[in-house]
């Protein structure tokens, strides 16, 4: 299964992720 997030944010929002990175629920994945 998959979850797709689509959201609006200020231009200085940045993901702190890598492609194919494993994440856990509750882990921070983006900051402004």
């Amino acid at each position: 299964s998959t979850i797709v997030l689509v959201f609006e944010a200020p231009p200085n929002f940045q993901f702190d992720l890598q492609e194919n990175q494993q994440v856990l629920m509750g882990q921070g994945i983006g900051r402004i």
Partner: protein
Amino acid sequence: FSSRLKRVKFRSWFTLTSVSLIFFGVVSRNFIEDDDTREAKESQVKRSHNIGSWPLYIYSRLPLNSLSRLWGQLNSIDLPVWLRGPSFKFYSVLFGVNLEEMADPDLTHYKNLAEFFCRPIKPEKRPVDTSATLCSPCDGKVLKFGVVEEDGGIEQVKGITYKVDALLGTHDAPKVEAPPQQFDLERTEKEAHFIDLHGDIKTLTYKKEGDQSFVHPSTSRILSVSRTLVGAEGHKESNKLFYAVIYLAPGDYHRFHSPVEWVATLRRHFVGQLYSVAPYFQRTLQNLFILNERVAILGYWKYGFFSMTPVGATNVGSIKLNFDTHLATNEVYEHEIYSKDKLNEALTEKYKVQERKKLKRDTCYEATYANASKVLHGIPLFRGEEMGGFKLG
């Protein structure tokens, strides 16, 4: 020689019969599909996918929804107590399940694989990063993330994109009205618990704004949250639309939680296929996320629009939302479902006629949560709060 001759005859008969059965199966499925597609066309919903090679073409012709329902029913059969431990351990070894994290470590308490599949885990194993702007809603692998393109394109893989309005639907796309939700948060208190990175248990409580009787230390936080939720800042022209796609493998924890503080105002249930969403198919099947059964939950957060869309797959066709008991995916509407829910009679009467109709493929069923709260026009969801989960079949 005669027994050999008999064996050869039997073998050729067996081969011929099975090949013809498969062939007629595929052809009849074709006819049903064409019939469905004609119906879908009537509802002016286009279904387009680029199937590519013939193995994918044959795969796309398989009755995946029925197979998924059968898979769910098989896995809902209760196992004998003595068999539960070994079979769930075997599943855990196969798919890399971390048994240490389970809220209830006793494997015999899970009656069947379906229950084991959506097992809860210890909250302290998933601390919520309150300092981040966005948290992950679930366990999994991040396949794609980035900025939605000017023309609304989301990159599925290099060279394959799909449109955000095709994924989430638009106001004017054809939809069928689903029963309205029967709850009003003004009269109820809503609490969400989570553990932050320091291991402290946090409880967010939502009560009527201005009600000074909030009692939890983080109350001041809830007041500021509800003020921001109502959109004190809200949409700005300079904002951008971002996206992230997270794939849950079979061994992952399959409940999903709210990634931020936001308000869900609308739900769109797209009835569709149940192709596998494994990375291979994400790389090869175009428009996979537009074709598959999915539930788009739309709303807003402090920076404007916010949405979260769980997408079903062959083995996990059912998507459940804790706050939306009327949602039933990968199922044919049975009028018993409605009567069981004991909606008020007039409402049930009104929908009964509509119920007899089977769920239509490629159709969007929309329900609004607007009456959940007059202040917020939707359901407040708190970061880390469990929103629902995927179920087998």
